[in-house]
């Protein structure tokens, strides 16, 4: 979503992005002229008249599980975003019985919070796990 019109979105997709992504952009390119949606999401920069790099993970109940906002010159890490979605999906699947420690990705051990785990995380998890 940006403040550009759908007509400019079409030109950007057809003229440039479709040369980088085969078949063009596979998801809707939303237009927020005036920044009204960006304002309620806290990402509209009134001085510059543009939206900053906000990224919101919204679960199937419509609840925001996480967000990140960057200033324009630095791009996002898509791998990290996908990792976070996978972690939220895992937690949801276990109905909160499992939690994903720092650096978790699918296949790595999760934690099962409860009285037995208090003070014992050091026995089941090492700081090495926080890194890829």
């Amino acid at each position, binding site marked *: 979503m940006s403040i550009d019109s759908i007509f400019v979105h*079409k030109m950007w997709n057809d003229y440039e992005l479709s040369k980088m992504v085969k078949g063009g952009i596979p998801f809707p390119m939303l237009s927020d002229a005036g920044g009204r949606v960006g304002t309620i999401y806290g990402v509209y920069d009134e001085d510059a008249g543009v939206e900053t790099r*906000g990224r*919101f993970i919204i679960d199937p109940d419509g609840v925001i599980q996480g967000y990140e906002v960057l200033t324009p010159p630095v791009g996002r890490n898509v791998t990290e975003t996908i990792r976070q979605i996978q972690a939220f999906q895992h937690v949801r699947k276990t109905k909160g019985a499992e939690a994903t420690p720092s650096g978790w990705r699918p296949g790595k051990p999760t934690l099962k919070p409860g009285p037995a785990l208090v003070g014992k995380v050091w026995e089941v998890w090492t700081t090495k796990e926080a890194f890829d």
Partner: protein
Amino acid sequence: MPEELKVGCARPTGGPVGEEPKEDISEQTTNKEEVKAMIKVGRKAPDFIAPAYYKGKFVNVKLSDYLGKWVLLCFYPGDFTFV
């Protein structure tokens, strides 16, 4: 899922769903403070409708139509910017 949009010469716009039209500026200012506090993890994402370009068509996208799915909502400064 999104419904197709008929476009004329006007530039289509969307906006928040369920927001009352504002009457005077002072009200608008207080309202703005309130809406800014709406974004918190664990809280509902504010609903909106926005026109979109999607696979060769112009459509209207409503966030709440995606209930039951995971949604990644990304904002960016502008088309043809570089990053």
